């Protein structure tokens, strides 16, 4: 039996349920999560994992009938933002489990698969991971070389996976492999692999720039024999499943970026309110005010964008999650960098925690689709866009949306479908698209002053990306 309508399509969970969970998690993290100790030790203490499990965090998005909290994407994003404000390794471990690790199982798993795996995943007794990247296949998923072939009653998995988040903790893996379609062409299949399956070999922990508390390992699958019941959905149906699972993964990662940026902003505001230079508090100085105002506006736009995307479904969710992923990962880096700058020399010292925020944030511009690849794809998707956003907006948001639409039209007229191969034009269009999406989201849900401030900044940046001058 396939899981019914997706959780994201349901009415959003009551705010009070999400707020209560996030409040408990926030209190727990304030007491038990020490980001710098986690970074130094290279792992999350068991007491933290067990404590979060006891709060229901690992089951938050899993079905209630199997012990989960049944939260949709809106609630899950808020949960991950809360965790990321305390520590990005913890947020990544949980976010991976709730998104890429379990989403395909929840949405495409059979009743038998649900009964076998979901209860221990919901309790946190089992941690989930997702294995798609390979040494020779990163953002280009069509290059996956791991194969799943039919051999009598069994399936045989062969290949190697790299950079598996939660690799050292997980006991259940959703693995992307190549199979044959009925026509004989190569297609993608998602299959469940257990740590104990014969032939599953875990490689060593990677040493990383950041996210050191989050486990990252490789895996080799040496002729692993799997029963057919391990396939999620039908053989060869993995591409559509991947699109949806990646949308969850990207959006939860974006929510983590909001948490990181908020933590950086909070530190910057505290520091600039206390520190005096040239006879004045830093926050009384115009340049500092301009920088902190810009950070505030950007964080508000990031949060608005995640919430707007999380409330959608289908193709809109796929598009907006990619847009949010790029915007939020670039913005977390920018906000973190500004916060460090405002701390002067002390920002560069590990003890202030800003260096750790930046180190942890860096990889989000790379994983779950490198930003440059996603920007090119967003530019391509924009070419098929029929909605005219400019009509429904005003001020700088209107001008930004109008310019994107005019640029799109010009590309259509000048190149037709050949523009699909003009990657530089698509990349530039993608840069303007994410700014438009963020400005639109902020206009709808953020504080009006912050939304206006962000829209002015975004318009200026978009004009540069499109190679036009006002």
């Amino acid at each position, binding site marked *: 039996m396939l899981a019914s309508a997706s959780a994201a399509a349901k009415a959003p969970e009551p705010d009070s349920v999400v707020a209560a969970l996030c409040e408990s998690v926030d209190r727990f993290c304030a007491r038990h999560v020490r980001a710098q100790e986690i970074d130094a030790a290279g792992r999350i203490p068991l007491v933290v994992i067990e404590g979060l499990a006891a709060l229901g965090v690992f089951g938050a998005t899993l079905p209630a009938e199997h012990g989960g909290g049944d939260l949709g994407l809106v609630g899950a994003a808020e949960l991950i933002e809360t965790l990321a404000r305390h520590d990005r390794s913890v947020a990544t471990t949980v976010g991976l489990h709730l998104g890429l690790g379990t989403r395909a199982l929840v949405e495409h798993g059979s009743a038998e698969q649900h009964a076998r795996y979901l209860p221990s995943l919901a309790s946190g007794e089992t941690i989930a991971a997702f294995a798609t990247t390979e040494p020779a296949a990163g953002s280009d998923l069509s290059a996956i070389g791991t194969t799943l072939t039919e051999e009598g009653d069994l399936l045989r998995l062969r290949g190697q996976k790299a950079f598996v988040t939660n690799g050292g903790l997980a006991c259940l893996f959703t693995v992307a492999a190549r199979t044959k*379609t009925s026509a004989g062409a190569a297609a993608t299949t998602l299959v469940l692999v257990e740590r104990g399956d014969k032939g599953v070999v875990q490689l060593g922990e990677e040493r990383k720039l950041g996210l050191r508390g989050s486990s990252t390992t490789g895996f080799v699958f040496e002729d692993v024999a799997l029963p057919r019941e391990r396939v999620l959905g039908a053989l060869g149906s993995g591409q559509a499943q991947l699109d949806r699972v990646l949308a969850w993964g990207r959006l939860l990662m974006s929510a983590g970026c909001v948490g990181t940026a908020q933590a950086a902003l909070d530190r910057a505001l505290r520091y600039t309110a206390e520190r005096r230079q040239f006879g004045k508090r830093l926050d009384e100085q115009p340049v500092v005010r301009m920088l902190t105002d810009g950070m505030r506006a950007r964080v508000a736009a990031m949060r608005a964008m995640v919430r707007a995307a999380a409330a959608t479904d289908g193709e809109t969710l796929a598009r907006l999650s990619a847009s949010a992923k790029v915007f939020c990962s670039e913005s977390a880096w920018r906000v973190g960098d500004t916060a460090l700058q405002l701390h002067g020399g002390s920002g560069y010292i590990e003890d202030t925690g800003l260096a750790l925020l930046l180190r942890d944030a860096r990889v989000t511009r790379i994983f779950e689709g490198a930003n440059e690849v996603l920007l090119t794809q967003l530019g391509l998707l924009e070419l*098929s866009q029929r909605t005219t956003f400019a009509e429904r907006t005003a001020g700088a948001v209107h001008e930004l949306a109008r310019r994107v639409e005019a640029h799109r039209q010009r590309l259509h007229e000048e190149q037709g479908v*050949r523009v*699909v*191969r003009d990657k530089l034009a698509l990349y530039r269009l993608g840069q303007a698209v994410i700014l438009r999406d963020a400005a639109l989201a902020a206009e709808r849900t953020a504080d009006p002053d912050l939304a206006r401030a962000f829209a002015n900044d975004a318009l200026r940046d978009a004009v540069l990306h499109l190679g036009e001058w006002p």
Partner: protein
Amino acid sequence: MIRAELEGKVLSLISQLSTLKAHELRREQRLREDLGMDSVSSMELLSMVAEELDLDISVEDAAGITTVGGTLELVAQHYERSA
């Protein structure tokens, strides 16, 4: 160029983006489900065809194509129009 020659060229381009050889392709095959293409590679296909045959195909027309047969028809229409 006669129709068979035109179709041969298009099938050859499709096979470059699929793991099937040109002679294994059938009109009813779906680009995504049967040939393992994604939305990006199916648009890439039409872009390659437009470039190779010097045709003006719009993005809207290309986005609506889902099968091998649909691709062949669209290309034939544009080729006849441009001849």
